[in-house]
Structure formats: structure tokens, C-alpha cells
């Protein structure tokens, strides 16, 4: 039996807030209910759940199955992984559905990422932390800034290229009622933003939020019977380079800070889908920090090396139409995948990309990460 084609059929969100005042499980359940309602699926039809968390900042899939009163599960995946997980989870859910191991899989991320444990400055378990935390090298903006300085140097780009990402993302966020950063930002405003970890200013950094986001993944055949146009999963890929480190903050065994995981998975991602970077109409790229967008644009082949900042300024390719994690809020990148779905479905509202047959989404910033290609159902 040939594998079945798979699609994302719906998305669901809670509001993104500074303090939800609610248990993470309630946020997850609300996003799950919203995603099923969006797709026109009854909760009882869910037979799979996949999610990720960092440390213990969320709830297991079994807890959500209980909260949703599901009759049973055929597929479950609790991944202890950070921002490199969302596309990977959708890809694994798609693989389960393609091979008949599940019919309707809910992929979610829920966290009180602002009022509770903040991922960016959390102390990760693992053996690498003993070399970082005691010396004050202890937060994600620092690690990514370390890469960013070298990346800008080797590619002949500068601070204004980081700023171009912040400015372009904010322009989208202004048009997105879900976004938490909606005050307009120009280059002067960017340059006036306070330094956090030079070369990063506050405006280079995502805004952590409380909330949840969920995607409903099912077979393409089933999706065609549901309420929304299917966003077909054309391809998914994961990549970690050699010696990816002892924990998610350890990067001293990686030699080259100027190329991230996207370069490693590009050929597999596009090859499996029978597409090329030139086919991409809209990009939804993980942006915990501005530099991640530039590196991923180049790694995916959407921009020439050293040309990502110019591409962002040109507006030739819509990138992070939700305003990114910088503007919409740090739902850890699940919201970035959801935006790619909305764009392919043509549901982007004021921020809809004019052409939206093919979207690429990424999860992750440095050594390891995942990506998805979504396309409309022709």
C-alpha cells in the first residue's frame, strides 16, 4: 500500500499574554478545541497527540487526552526538545498518518513562557551547563549573539541587516491582531533599542508569552472533507550536524557559526517534495532572534550567502507574515508553523502573501532543527 498524502487541516490558538493566570493544561486544551473546531472535526475523532517541552514547562500528551476526554490514542509523542521541534513533530505526525498508524493527530505547544519558566534564560539539564552558567554565559540571546557576530563578519553583513529583520517583522505584526508587539518600528527605533548581548539589542529578541497553539494533521483525503482548504505536507526533514553538543545550549563542538541546520537539510527537504527554493512563495522561519532568519534564508537557498538582509529589505519574498516570534510572540515556533498553514490556506487576512501555493517553515536556529514544505491542494 502506498503511503497516504497528509495535510494540516486546521489551527487553533489561545490569546498570547504576559500572564495567563491559568494552568498550562487548560491552555493546551483550549488550543486543541480551537484547532478541531477550525478544521470541523469532533474531539473524539482525535487518535494521536504530539507535543514538545523544555524541562517540565508543559504537560504530557496523556494529560491532554484526559482533559479532552478522548476515547483512546493510537499515536503519542512527548518530545523533550526546544525550538527545533515544531516542524519535526508535524513531520512525525505526517509519517504516522501516511503509514496508517493514526488518522487525526493534534500537534501542540503550550507554555506559561512569560509568567512561568522562561525558555530563553532557563538552565537546561545536561552536562554542558557547568561550563556556561558559573561564568555568566547563561542565556539563549548570548549563544545566538555569539553566532551572529561571526556570521555577519564572514558574510559581509552588518547590524542594519539584523535591523532589517526586526523592522520587516514588526510591519507584519502591526497587521496581526494576535501579535504582542504592535507598535511600529523603523531602523532608527531599532538602533535606539537597548543592548542585551551585543550584537543583539532588545529588538533582536523574541517576546516571551503565555499561551498555546495547536495544529490538526490528517490524511489529505480526510482533510478534503473538512472545513478548511488542506495545507498539504509536501515534505519534512530534520537535521543535526556533527557533534551537536551536550545540551541545547552547548555549541563549542560546532566549528562553523555561520551556517545553521537549514543548509544540511535543504536538499532532502526540497528533493522529497519535488520542489526547489525558487518555488517558495512564502517563508515562515523560526526567529527567536533576528540572525536566525538571515541564516535560514541563506541555508535554504532562498537568498545567496550574504544576501539575506538585502532580500528581507527588498520584500521580494514574504517572510514571517505573522510578525515572527519577534512580533507575534514566542509560542516556541508552533505559531510559525501555524502561520505557514494559514498562508497556504489563503487565510492570512491583511497580511496574506499574494502568491501562496508553496510555503516553507523552519524550527530551530543553530546546529539542529527541522523544516516543512507545505503546498496548496491543486
Amino acid at each position, binding site marked *: 500500500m502506498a503511503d497516504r498524502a497528509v495535510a494540516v487541516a486546521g489551527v487553533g490558538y489561545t490569546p498570547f499574554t504576559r500572564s495567563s493566570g491559568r494552568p498550562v493544561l487548560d491552555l493546551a486544551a483550549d488550543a486543541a478545541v480551537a484547532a478541531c473546531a477550525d478544521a470541523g472535526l469532533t474531539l473524539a475523532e482525535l487518535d494521536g497527540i504530539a507535543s514538545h517541552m523544555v524541562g517540565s514547562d508543559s504537560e504530557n500528551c496523556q494529560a491532554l487526552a484526559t482533559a479532552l476526554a478522548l476515547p483512546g490514542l493510537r499515536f503519542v509523542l512527548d518530545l523533550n526538545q526546544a525550538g527545533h521541534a515544531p516542524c519535526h513533530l508535524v513531520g512525525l505526525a505526517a509519517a504516522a498518518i501516511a503509514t496508517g498508524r493514526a488518522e487525526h493527530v493534534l500537534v501542540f505547544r503550550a507554555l506559561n513562557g512569560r509568567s512561568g519558566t522562561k525558555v530563553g534564560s532557563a538552565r537546561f539539564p545536561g552536562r*554542558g551547563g*557547568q561550563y556556561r552558567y*558559573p*561564568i555568566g554565559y547563561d*542565556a539563549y540571546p548570548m549563544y545566538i*549573539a555569539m553566532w551572529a557576530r561571526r556570521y555577519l563578519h564572514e558574510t559581509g553583513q552588518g547590524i542594519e541587516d539584523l535591523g532589517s529583520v526586526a523592522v520587516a517583522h514588526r510591519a507584519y505584526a502591526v497587521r496581526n491582531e494576535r501579535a504582542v508587539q504592535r507598535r511600529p518600528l523603523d531602523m532608527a527605533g531599532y538602533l535606539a533599542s537597548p543592548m542585551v548581548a*551585543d550584537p543583539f539589542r532588545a529588538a533582536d529578541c523574541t517576546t516571551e508569552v503565555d499561551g498555546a497553539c495547536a495544529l490538526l494533521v490528517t490524511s489529505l483525503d480526510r482533510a478534503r472533507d473538512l472545513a478548511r482548504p488542506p495545507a498539504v505536507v509536501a515534505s519534512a526533514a530534520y537535521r543535526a550536524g556533527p557533534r551537536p553538543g*551536550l545540551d541545547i545550549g552547548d555549541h563549542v563542538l560546532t*566549528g562553523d557559526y555561520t551556517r545553521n541546520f537549514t543548509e544540511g537539510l535543504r536538499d532532502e527537504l526540497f528533493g522529497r517534495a519535488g520542489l526547489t527554493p525558487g518555488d517558495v512563495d512564502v517563508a515562515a522561519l523560526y526567529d527567536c532572534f533576528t540572525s536566525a532568519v538571515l541564516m535560514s534564508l541563506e541555508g535554504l537557498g532562498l537568498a545567496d550567502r550574504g544576501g539575506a538582509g538585502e532580500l528581507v529589505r527588498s520584500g521580494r519574498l514574504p517572510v514571517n507574515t505573522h510578525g515572527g516570534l519577534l512580533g507575534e510572540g514566542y509560542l516556541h515556533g508552533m505559531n510559525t508553523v501555524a502561520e505557514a498553514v494559514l498562508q497556504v490556506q489563503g487565510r492570512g487576512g491583511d497580511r496574506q502573501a499574494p502568491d501562496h501555493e508553496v510555503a516553507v517553515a523552519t524550527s530551530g536556529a543553530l546546529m539542529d532543527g527541522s523544516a516543512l514544505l507545505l503546498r496548496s491542494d491543486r
Partner: protein
Amino acid sequence: MTARPRPAPPEPDADSATFWAALREERIALQRCSACQRLRFPPMGRCPWCATSGGAAEDVPGTGSVYSWIVVHRAFDEAFAADVPYVVATVDLDEGPRLALRLDEPDGVDFGARVRPRFHHHEDWSELRMVLDG
């Protein structure tokens, strides 16, 4: 008056105990793989290039060059609030391994800048920092 909070000391494990103990004596002790001969950092049970188990520690001079650096302006841990702004650099030792460490007296830091070790002795552990060389 409340004392300034101190950084939490490292918690050495079976692999790293030798490294931390050596810093106390102002030595930099790194493991060398018996098969591929590479020095490695962080300390760990197998060589991350060839997976060979073990590897005796040996002292290295600790000179190297700056690969990249950041200037921390916002402390995320209260223990470092009085230190800002401070520089953290990734340094490629002449013997190969890369370390992330604090750079003292960082004025003039640049890509490829030569650095040498400077040991900081805290109450119950010792920290390897670097200073610009020459």
C-alpha cells in the same frame, strides 16, 4: 547590607572533575584521544570525532585566538549584575578545542585576536578566563 549574590559554582561530574581540579592549580588539562590524537573539550567519556573510549588528560598552554565574542549588557543572573558590561568570547586554542569564556580587559578584541589564559580563583572553584596577548 546584603552580600552580592555569588555565581553558583560548577558541579563537576566524573568526566569534568580533572578539568576543574587542574584549574585550581592554574593548569588547563584536556583529554587526548588515544586513537585520533585529538584534544577535546568538554571532557567526556568518548571522543566526539571517532567515538574511542577514554583518553588521558594532558596540560596545554591555553593560548589561542578569538573566534567570536559578545558583550553582555543585561545580566540574566543577579550574580553578574555588577559585572555588566562584560565580554564572553569563544576562543580556539592553538591545540584545537574551542572554549567559551570571559575575556578580561577586552578593549581591542577582534576576530583572530591572540589571547592567553588568566585564572580567577573563586572561594570554592577556579575559573579560566582569557586576556588579549600583546
